[in-house]
């Protein structure tokens, strides 16, 4: 009999892929139910307007139309979209606009027809009489007296103000050799998962059951939310996240359309489907970032950073989605980065504007923090005439200091920041590259080297760190079936991350069985025990830890049974090659199947033992994990056009132990691409009147293959002590390291011209203009 190999740590082809590459995977729009109706949403073309009236008569009588709803039809019949994060002002968030629209793309009416073409025909016939109002899109202007007020009941546009004071920072500012002040912007971004959102709802009248297929990262949390909004018992609501085509935080939410389509299915007694179009996705799916930060950084002449003081203006948009006001907190708490900065303080002012809500987008608050920390380090180096490497080294938290309590009150689990930096410097051959850079400049070529040493907070997380109703634990069930195959039910909801593979690797090794003998199930609340979901790089570090808890319980039971059969103590037993064997002598073994047969009581029930082989566990992490690394990019700027060309891109990441190297590389690559996109290309643009300018992919510059470099990856491995696998999480690392790395490289290239800072995205025109102005001066 062939030997069963080990899987953890090996290059394993994904188990998910055959269905995806054959075109047989089932995304929401691929689910087919008989008699399904199609819904089309009519959206506001105005950023801010009062609705005088809506005439739906022509639409209601159009061919194929079954129903048309407006805000008035829903008033007092259904709840609003919840925001679970605390804030001073949380407005009612209706499913369809109630008397007023507050951003371009806000849902005003919904049409249900026999097919989407006919629904669109009818939507075109709806006549909405709007009375346009002044709008505000600039969050700083939204706070000024006399600014248009979005929610009259609050009297102004303040969402909430968060203060983390610390007088030590002001003392540091008073006694510093120098105080570096600057303002930086993390611009608004659109997540753009390739699969837009989509919902299919099917109400079963006789049983009072609602089934919803929706493109989500959080099926269980959504079930709770839907049940509450619709007034249904939670055990009659089933949420299925089928194949999900990317999320990046945008699907870590509860959207109007999910409740609307469910409501309509119940009202009409038929399945109703709504599929988001890309224009809707850019206008009415959550955006990310959109923070302005004013910084004061006291330093000593040798580059030691004595503190950071920050004021944030955070643009929340027109309504609050699930976690909207919770995101900026991470930016503040993480802005000291990898550095032993003794004091920090910040104030965050969160503001309503006539724009779509912001919420989590890959990194969710930490890319902003890393951008602050790493631009700060380069600013310090620039102002003091020091090498950016030297400044980082001077301020790094030393590896002996872990676990390290930061001045923000976080406890970093483990780290060795110098190791990652050294490895990256070695790969790029830093002294040689600096020499080449100097040489290039002599020939009028602007080459820049950018460094970013980042740390991020992952494995979210202890429940106390998260808002109510979005807990930090995760669940897993492990069931060894009667044929000794294993089924894993996980509460996370992967949508590209590949846990059907990594979890199968882990379970297979634990039981000494083949990876093909493990099936991983997720994303169906009727099958899987309550869980939390996939976000915050928590799938493996929290969901995987829950899995290993359940694995351990099943192993214990198997060992207990085997010990009676083998007359050996349970702690002397191990699993290998589809047997239970003596640790000391693998030849002394019995087939795993024989133990399973006993467990199920097929032959001889073990007295006093409950038949069956399954276990469910919940892992509540004791703390967050803190992955880190150093990214280095080398770029060249064409001074004639301002175009940035990549010469090298090196990423050294430390995500703790690596279960699946191929998948880790994939996560890092994709993260880097999105981070570079923030640095160079992407920005959601609203004009000053609140009109959405980047309304299609013809305007919003999501990068194509030619706009991105070849990535050179390496790793250091510093295990986390907080979970049994020693993993840290890697889903967001690339995004967090790459943005400051690329901006630092571009600014480094322009340093000889005396250019200090340019806000993202570093569009060629901005660089061209800065170069032109610098040369003029």
């Amino acid at each position, binding site marked *: 009999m062939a030997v069963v190999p080990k899987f953890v740590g090996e290059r394993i082809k994904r188990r998910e892929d055959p269905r995806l590459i054959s075109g047989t995977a089932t995304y929401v729009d691929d689910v087919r139910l008989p008699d399904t109706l199609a819904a089309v949403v009519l959206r506001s073309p105005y950023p801010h307007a009062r609705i005088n009236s809506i005439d739906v008569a022509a639409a209601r009588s159009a061919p194929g139309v079954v129903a048309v709803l407006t805000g008035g039809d829903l008033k007092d019949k259904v709840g609003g979209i919840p925001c679970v994060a605390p804030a001073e002002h949380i407005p009612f968030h209706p499913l369809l606009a109630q008397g007023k629209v507050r951003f371009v793309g806000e849902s005003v009416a919904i049409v249900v027809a026999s097919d989407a073409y006919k629904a669109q*025909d009818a939507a*075109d016939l709806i006549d909405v009489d709007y009375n346009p109002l002044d709008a505000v899109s600039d969050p700083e202007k939204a706070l000024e007296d006399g600014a248009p007020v979005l929610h009259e009941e609050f009297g102004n546009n303040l969402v909430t103000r968060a203060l983390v004071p610390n007088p030590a920072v002001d003392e540091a500012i008073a006694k510093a050799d120098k105080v570096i002040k600057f303002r930086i912007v993390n611009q608004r971004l659109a997540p753009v998962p390739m699969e837009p959102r989509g919902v299919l709802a099917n109400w079963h009248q006789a049983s009072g059951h609602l089934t919803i297929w929706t493109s989500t990262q959080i099926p269980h949390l959504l079930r709770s939310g839907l049940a509450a909004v619709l007034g249904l018992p939670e055990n009659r609501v089933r949420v299925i996240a089928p194949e999900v085509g990317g999320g990046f935080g945008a699907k870590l939410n509860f959207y109007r359309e999910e409740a609307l389509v469910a409501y309509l299915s119940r009202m009409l007694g038929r399945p109703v489907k709504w599929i988001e179009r890309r224009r809707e996705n850019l206008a009415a799916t959550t955006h990310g970032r959109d923070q302005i930060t004013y910084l004061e950084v006291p330093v000593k002449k040798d580059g030691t950073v004595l503190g950071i003081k920050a004021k944030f203006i955070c643009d929340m948009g027109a309504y609050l989605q699930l976690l909207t006001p919770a995101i900026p907190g991470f930016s503040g708490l993480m802005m000291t980065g990898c550095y032993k900065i003794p004091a920090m303080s910040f104030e965050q002012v969160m503001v309503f504007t006539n724009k779509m809500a912001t919420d989590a987008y890959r990194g969710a608050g930490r890319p902003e923090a890393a951008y602050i920390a790493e631009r700060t380090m380069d600013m310090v180096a620039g102002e003091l005439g020091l090498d950016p490497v030297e400044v980082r080294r001077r301020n790094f938290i030393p590896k002996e200091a872990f676990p390290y309590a930061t001045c923000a009150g976080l406890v970093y689990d483990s780290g060795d920041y110098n190791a990652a930096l050294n490895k990256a410097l070695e790969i790029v051959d830093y002294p040689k590259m600096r020499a080449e850079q100097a040489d290039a400049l002599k020939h009028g070529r602007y080459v820049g080297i950018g460094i970013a040493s980042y740390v991020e907070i992952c494995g979210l997380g202890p429940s106390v760190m998260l808002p109510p109703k979005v807990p930090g634990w995760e669940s897993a069930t492990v069931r060894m079936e009667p044929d000794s195959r294993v089924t894993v039910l996980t509460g996370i909801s992967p949508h590209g991350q590949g846990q059907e593979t990594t979890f199968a690797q882990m379970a297979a090794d634990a039981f000494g069985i083949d990876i093909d003998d493990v099936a991983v199930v997720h994303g169906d609340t009727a099958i899987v025990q309550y869980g939390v979901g996939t976000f915050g790089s928590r799938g493996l570090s929290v969901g995987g830890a829950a899995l290993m808890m359940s694995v351990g319980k099943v192993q214990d039971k198997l060992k207990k049974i085997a010990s009676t059969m083998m007359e050996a103590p349970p702690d002397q037993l191990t699993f290998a090659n589809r047997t239970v064997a003596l640790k000391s002598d693998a030849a002394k073994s019995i087939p795993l199947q024989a133990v399973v047969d006993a467990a199920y009581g097929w032959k001889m029930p073990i007295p006093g033992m409950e038949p069956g082989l399954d276990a469910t566990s919940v892992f509540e992490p004791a703390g967050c994990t803190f992955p880190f690394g150093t990214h280095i990019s080398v770029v060249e700027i064409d001074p004639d056009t301002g175009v940035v060309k990549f010469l090298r891109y090196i990423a050294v990441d430390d995500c703790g132990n690596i279960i699946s190297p191929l998948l880790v590389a994939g996560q890092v690559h994709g993260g880097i691409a999105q981070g570079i996109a923030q640095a160079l290309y992407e920005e959601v643009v609203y004009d000053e009147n609140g009109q959405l300018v980047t309304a299609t992919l*013809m305007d919003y510059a999501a990068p194509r293959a030619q706009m991105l470099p070849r990535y050179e990856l390496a790793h250091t491995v510093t295990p986390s002590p907080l979970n049994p696998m020693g993993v840290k999480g890697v889903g967001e690392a690339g995004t967090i390291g790459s943005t400051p790395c690329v901006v630092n490289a571009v600014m480094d290239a322009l340093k000889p011209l005396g250019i200090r800072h340019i806000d993202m995205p570093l569009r*060629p025109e901005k660089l*061209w203009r800065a170069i032109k102005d610098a040369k003029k001066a």
Partner: protein
Amino acid sequence: MFPGQFEYHRAASIKDALDLLKRYGDDAKLLSGGHSLIPMMKLRLAQPAHLIDVTKIAEMRAISESGGKIVIGAAASHDAVANSSLVRDKLGLLAEAAAAIGDVQVRNRGTIGGSLTHADPAADYPAAVLALEGEIKLERDGGARTIKAADFFLDLMTTAVQPGELLSQIAFAPIPTGTGYSYQKYPHPASGFAMVGVAALVSLDRSGKIASSRVGVTGLGAKAFRASAVEAALAGKAADAATIAAAAARTADGIDALGDIHASSEYRAELARVYARRTIQAAVARAKA
């Protein structure tokens, strides 16, 4: 995403298409590759009641040489033009412009006639067709007329095509041997259209001076144009870097440049000058080779 209703007609011949055009008048639109029209219909910015598909008319897809001219059927796809050995041999500039359009899927489907009649200010073809002095044939009931490329583009998305007319083919004189050419564009980072595109043809005399040049520019203004000031500044001069730079500096003279979030009018004008310089230099290098 869902076009409004219309009737679809497939024309078997040019005459057939003209008859349908006559019958349905303003309610009808000609459909070739559909890569300009269908996106507008999906947004319901265009809602024609009748579509007349001309892509199955064989003579409109043909690429041939006759009477000393290279003749491109209006329904020839960008991919067909880019990869036609005849075009690559004798009309390399057009092949280069065709290969720069959009992406492979768009090139496989979009057609030269469709692109020219749509007259998007950021389309690639117009720069090359202007520089190559293409002759555009417009068929109409009872006859045809030929119009010079220079007279074809009137304004933003407006051409000399009259109601009832059908663009059937474009004819070009082959590029003489010894004439260098180049088409280069600065692609829009999101759409891939030409934020600026410059097509240059340069002939040198025996002494290496510039005998003649033709420079077409797209993306900069409301319509593509010939940069006559640049051409005049090159004429009879030595083909050196200083001359080329001085001439290229005049590319945007007198043009009301477009602007958007990715490139203001000022920056676009500068891009036009830079790209004119680069394409002319590349054309000169090829002329010398």
